[in-house]
């Protein structure tokens, strides 16, 4: 990898103690299980997987909102745990899914966008105003909205406000958690165009969490597929979409409904429910739903294979001794 990683996860795990029901003893739920990832400068890493796979827990750990149970999060090579929350917030900022609930309805747009400056005690009121206006210009909002309130804006405009707020401290990494899934199609395309423009102009690095694979395909440079807390496959976007290796990735890609009439609805053969993360299946966690499962899959967890195409965790692709870490 040529670019130095802006963000690095080393064997990060997060375990929650949860009660499976009334009066039942609490048991560990491993939401994120030994995840190692790197984000190079200027990259867009797409993180995909079904609800409950641990995507959002991972994002919270990256933002320093949740401490990992094990492992380390490094920002520019420095560990994030123990670091000052504010120092982290200067470098990593989130954009959340729902622009209706992530903006304080009682604050004006100007206040919302400039809040990070005030929290970090950067500049004076004159500079706050100037930088807020610059940000509004940057995200394509008229300056006059600074005096408006969130309820006066449309969904797309609110998401632009959320992006302006995330960018005002000039962070290096933006964590986008489902940034367009609450928006209409015509607005989604505008926000995606904006994210792409901003990345080019400001050299931003994105972690894009989404269940919309078409969106991920469109803006990510690399994609990591998560299943039950683990990264089961990672590859360059084009490679992953054209030649998926993991049967789970294949099933995910198959279930993307492209607007092509006549193809019908695909049968993913994924079987029924997503497994209960409190009782993960033995061996490879995907084996109960896997059309290609063999005996070994329920007995032993596959090793991670790292090769020129990225990484894969599946018994169909045994780890090569030399390629192992």
């Amino acid at each position, binding site marked *: 990898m040529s670019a130095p990683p802006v963000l690095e996860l080393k064997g990060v795990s997060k375990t929650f103690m949860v009660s499976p029901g009334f009066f039942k003893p609490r048991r560990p739920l491993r939401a994120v299980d030994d995840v190692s990832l790197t984000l190079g400068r200027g990259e867009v890493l797409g993180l995909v997987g079904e609800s409950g796979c641990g995507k959002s827990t991972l994002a919270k750990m990256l933002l320093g909102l949740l401490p990992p149970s094990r492992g380390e999060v490094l920002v520019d090579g420095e560990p994030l745990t123990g670091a000052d929350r504010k120092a982290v917030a200067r470098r990593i900022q989130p954009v959340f899914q729902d622009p209706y609930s992530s903006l304080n309805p009682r604050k004006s747009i100007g206040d919302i966008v400039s809040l990070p400056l005030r929290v970090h005690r950067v500049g004076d009121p004159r500079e706050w105003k100037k930088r807020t206006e610059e940000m509004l210009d940057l995200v394509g909002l008229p300056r006059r909205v600074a005096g408006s309130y969130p309820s006066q804006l449309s969904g797309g405009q609110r998401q632009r406000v959320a992006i302006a707020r995330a960018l005002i401290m000039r962070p290096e990494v933006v964590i986008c958690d489902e940034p367009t899934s609450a928006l209409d199609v015509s607005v989604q395309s*505008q926000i995606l165009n904006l994210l792409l423009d901003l990345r080019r102009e400001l050299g931003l690095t994105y972690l894009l969490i989404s269940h919309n694979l078409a969106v991920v395909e469109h803006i990510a440079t690399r994609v990591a597929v998560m299943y039950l807390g683990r990264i089961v496959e990672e590859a360059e976007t084009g490679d992953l*979409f054209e030649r998926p290796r993991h049967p789970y990735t294949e099933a995910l890609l198959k279930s993307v409904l492209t607007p092509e*009439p006549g193809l*019908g609805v695909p049968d993913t053969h994924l079987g029924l429910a*997503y497994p209960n993360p409190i009782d993960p299946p033995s061996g490879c966690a995907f084996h109960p739903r896997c059309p290609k499962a063999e005996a070994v899959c329920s007995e032993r967890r596959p090793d991670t294979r790292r090769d020129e195409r990225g990484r894969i965790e599946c018994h169909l692709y045994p780890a090569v001794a030399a390629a192992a870490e």
Partner: protein
Amino acid sequence: MALLEARGLRVDIPLAGGTLHAVRGIDFSVEKGETLCIVGESGCGKSLTSLALMNLLPRKARRSAERLNFAGIDLQALSERDYARLRGNRMAMIFQEPMTSLNPSYTVGDQLTEALLTHKGVSHREARERAVYLLERVGITAAASRLGQYPHQLSGGLRQRVMIAMSLMCGPELIIADEPTTALDVTIQAQILHLLAELQREFGMALVLITHDLGVVARIAHKVAVMYAGQVVEAGSTEAIFAAPQHPYTLGLMECIPVPGRTERGGRLGSIPGIVPSLVGEMRHCAFRGRCPFADTPCAEDPGLRETSGGHSYRCHFRPEERRVTAELEASA
């Protein structure tokens, strides 16, 4: 004769500042065994249309139509009591949010069997047998044990399957589904749509599916009606609409969505600048005028539906070859 036929369907909501014309005279029909997708963005009136069909509109909203027939019955002449005999029985609805549309204080079994017990007067045992059969059909394992569970004990995907099973209990001729898969993962979405298509073939039901997802439309619909600002702006067979969209709004929508393998990765997507017009008060001009790159003088008048071959129609003053770009619109919504 069509199973469901609506002509000039309107929904008006009186507000303090005037009347909101949420659905402004739309026409559509569905044959037995056919799937009609109504597609459009928030606020276009698609959900109110589905509620109007079921006579479940909010109290203040008024429904009117030149014709509104279901299986030869004039729906406008029905008393509320007769409507109740139809609803859940011969026409059923699947709502968007399985979380809020199931009653949290009754078991799945109670809710599943209610319609059958009410409409068909079967015994409790028969009703439970049918419930178990349908839960199995929608792919729920250990179906019998699910009957005693409460909605909160089920995952989102399972709840939506329960909703589908519930809509099938009385063997309806028509199912109206409002965004049945929007809240679900792509994998579950594919499974549920697959199931709906399969059940439709098997039981010959008609399906009206309300969605904003053109991918879903392309894969499941026989016919499509594109709604914008309370009107149907384009209608036709799925093949015709996707092969040759005619209305500037439909064209715009199609360019907005990234399609793996077709749109250039990282390239600019199309967009539809501007916002939906207010539907309060009378509107004389074309509803899409303010967002249309081809808007011109005639657009001050509402265009009628223009027919092309094969039942394909669209609401625009201009044929595609007659349009020229008149405005460079700035994207800022």
